[in-house]
């Protein structure tokens, strides 16, 4: 018998093992839901799968009686737009500042402690400030995401720049590169796949801030809808929305990973199983 740390599952058992927790969770839900519905057919806390499916179809196909729009897609569009804007702005700032701080000692000495302190401010604590300054519209929600994840991306990318082998930076200088050329041809191209890594890591946090902002002040959005129907105990709406948000988050992460592998094969060549 091999040691536990040396036992590896085959292809089929890998898939089976991956499915197991999902199946177990679904089974547990069905049992709990059945038990509650048997006691009280009008129970709203754990609706049956049938109710959930009906509700999902209704959400995704029936236009709202008030506006004529399908709220589910309207909410999805609004949330994804805010998320993309927030994450996009954060990534751009992160790349610029990360490279500047990592590559140029004079800038690092001047600003790295400042960024370190800024990153400790809890973003939710400044949300009221954002609402006061930027109003209750789109801007404050996007800014909350930016405030929330930019410090992490900046510090992560600064670290990645400093981790580039010293030899490469010296080699570039012996090829006659000036500081700008080193940033442009040596540091930037090696940092873009690392930026994708940092964005993937910060997406979960970005969703957190997006839904928080939407919960507090919004007129549409996935987070807004969940918190709106909470007062009716509408679990048949909340649960599909939560699953949908999870799927969106997973797909975003998957797409970023695939993009990185396609565009930067040299970065991923050392990964196991490739």
């Amino acid at each position, binding site marked *: 018998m091999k040691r536990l740390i040396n036992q590896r599952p085959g292809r089929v058992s890998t898939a089976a093992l991956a499915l197991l927790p999902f199946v177990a969770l679904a089974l547990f839900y069905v049992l709990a839901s059945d038990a509650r519905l048997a006691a009280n057919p009008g129970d709203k806390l754990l609706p049956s799968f049938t109710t959930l499916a009906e509700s999902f179809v209704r959400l995704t196909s029936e236009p709202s009686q008030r506006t004529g729009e399908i709220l589910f897609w309207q909410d999805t569009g609004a949330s994804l737009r805010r998320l993309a804007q927030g994450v996009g702005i954060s990534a751009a700032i992160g790349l610029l500042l990360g490279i500047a701080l990592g590559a140029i000692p004079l800038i690092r000495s001047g600003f790295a402690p400042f960024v370190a302190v800024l990153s400790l401010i809890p973003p939710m604590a400044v949300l009221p400030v954002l609402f006061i300054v930027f109003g209750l519209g789109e801007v404050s929600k996007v800014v909350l995401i930016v405030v929330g994840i930019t410090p992490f991306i900046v510090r992560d990318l600064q670290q990645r720049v400093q981790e580039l*082998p010293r*030899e*490469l930076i*010296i*080699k*570039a*200088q*012996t*090829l*006659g*590169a*000036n500081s*700008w*050329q080193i940033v*442009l*041809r*040596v540091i930037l*191209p*090696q940092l873009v796949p690392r930026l994708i890594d940092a964005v993937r890591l910060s997406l979960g946090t970005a969703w957190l801030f997006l839904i928080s902002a939407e919960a507090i002040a919004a007129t549409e959005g996935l987070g807004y809808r969940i918190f709106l129907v909470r007062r009716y105990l509408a679990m048949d709406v909340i649960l599909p929305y939560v699953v949908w948000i999870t799927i969106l988050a997973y797909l975003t992460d998957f797409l970023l990973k695939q993009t990185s592998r396609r565009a*930067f*094969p*040299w*970065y991923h*060549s*050392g990964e196991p199983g490739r």
Partner: protein
Amino acid sequence: MTPRIRFENVWMTYGDQVVLERLNLTVAPGEFCTIVGASGCGKTTLLRLLLGEETPSRGRILLDGEPLPAEPGPDRGIVFQRYSVFPHLSVLGNVLLGLELRASPVTGRLFGSARRNAQEEAVAMLEAVGLGQALSKYPTQLSGGMQQRLALAQSLVMHPRILLLDEPFGALDPGIRRDMHELVLRLWRENNLTVFMVTHDIREGFYLGTRLLVFDKLRYDPDEPHAYGAGITYDLPIGQADPGTLAQVLGRPGVSRRPPASSPQPPAPSGER
């Protein structure tokens, strides 16, 4: 003739620790100096001084009669043991990079006919080191020996005044290492290079080049091992070095701390840096 490199009473100290002391050295253009010595005897410091990564604590270094610039530049090429090539560029891109940087200060890229000309030059250089078939590969797809060939081509396409080699073959298998020795000697002769090569392998030092510099402590105080720095204890024109001299050099306490070099050494651990 002006010496290519001249060290004038160079000292290198870090705090209380003296690494190099009273270093005087004159190297003519076209010489191939191999530098051996125990770990911590200033070989790497010498290379860092030549690169301009460090400036001497005392004394001065002249390159073709002018003070050596205090930062790395295109007049001095370098090949490290590892991380000498850019992982995000193809083989061709790696060699092209220097030509592009020189010609295009703002974008660092060449287009059109300028790019085609540079490409021809780069391909010729790659063919000279035996990488003509691997132009579009990425460095991670190359073996260790091929990566070092690429690093050599990348440096030589810039026609540096001196070429610095920092244990370039330390991580390679013995057979590959022999091929690389021949390649380096051929490139040195064909391009009329001035070479400084640091190596752990004293036999490599004897086999390659025109001049062997052995670094060791000139004085030693067992109570204060860092009080005195290293200097050149042997400066041998190779060719006149008979087996007796080799045995004598190997017999020095500083040098014999390395395992006996009777067989090719296993890849040197890179823990020194």
